[in-house]
């Protein structure tokens, strides 16, 4: 799981152009939106694309995102349980 969390942090930094951040800067338990990483709605869409592109996960219900994108750790757990590649 730690390996997946680290890889996911790297992918998020690249996909969202978080230029000045390193994986170590991201708290795996911190909220991705609002006070945490401060991501916006476009970033949420980009994370949905990231999950489909890199892990073969297609979210059927966009409302699922609210739960899945709570933190990097929650996102990694969801990916581990649902990945098809």
């Amino acid at each position: 799981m730690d390996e997946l969390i680290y890889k996911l942090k790297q992918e998020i930094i690249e996909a969202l152009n978080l230029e000045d951040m390193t994986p170590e800067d991201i708290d795996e338990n911190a909220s991705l939106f609002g006070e945490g990483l401060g991501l916006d709605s476009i970033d949420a869409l980009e994370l949905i694309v990231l999950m489909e592109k890199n892990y073969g996960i297609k979210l059927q219900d966009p409302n699922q995102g609210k739960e899945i994108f709570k933190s990097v750790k929650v996102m990694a757990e969801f990916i581990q349980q649902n990945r098809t590649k």
Partner: protein
Amino acid sequence: MMILHRVYISPDKVIVNGKALELTEKGSALLTQIYRSHIGNYPKFFKMDTLCKLGFVASELLLNAEGNRNFEPREDRAVILFNRSASLQADTNYQSTIQDSENFFPSPAAFVYTLPNIVTGEIAIRNKYFGETSFIVIEENDEKLIEQNLSVAFQDTDTKSIIGGWLDCTDEENFEANIFLMEK
């Protein structure tokens, strides 16, 4: 109409009110160097397409030259820019995400910049400007035509000043900004 401040940026040159800034980078790296050396603390910069980065750093240099920045909401300043290439670079970038049917992943973050007027919005949001924002695509950098359009904008009695001028970008290494702050 009177021009108060002017900023010119090309891939290898940055001039503020006639004075060249000492910068070492070229092309898109130059825009990042301007951001890091003269602006900073606005991570959204890194998410922008090249046209937005160009407009953002040019407007920041312009407004720093004006001084007294307080980021208070105001309705008397418009942002009206012109170019020839619309959002060509962002369009090409977005197209690359949907070109291959086997690897078809449209990027929302790339798509959002496939409208050139996004850059006027970025400048207005950053500075809390609630006046007119427009992006007009014309055939060439025609100062007379630009001036005519800006004089029309001043017919709105609420508009007292305009960030206006030329802002064109064909790709990451080819761009030109020649923008100014103008009062009625």
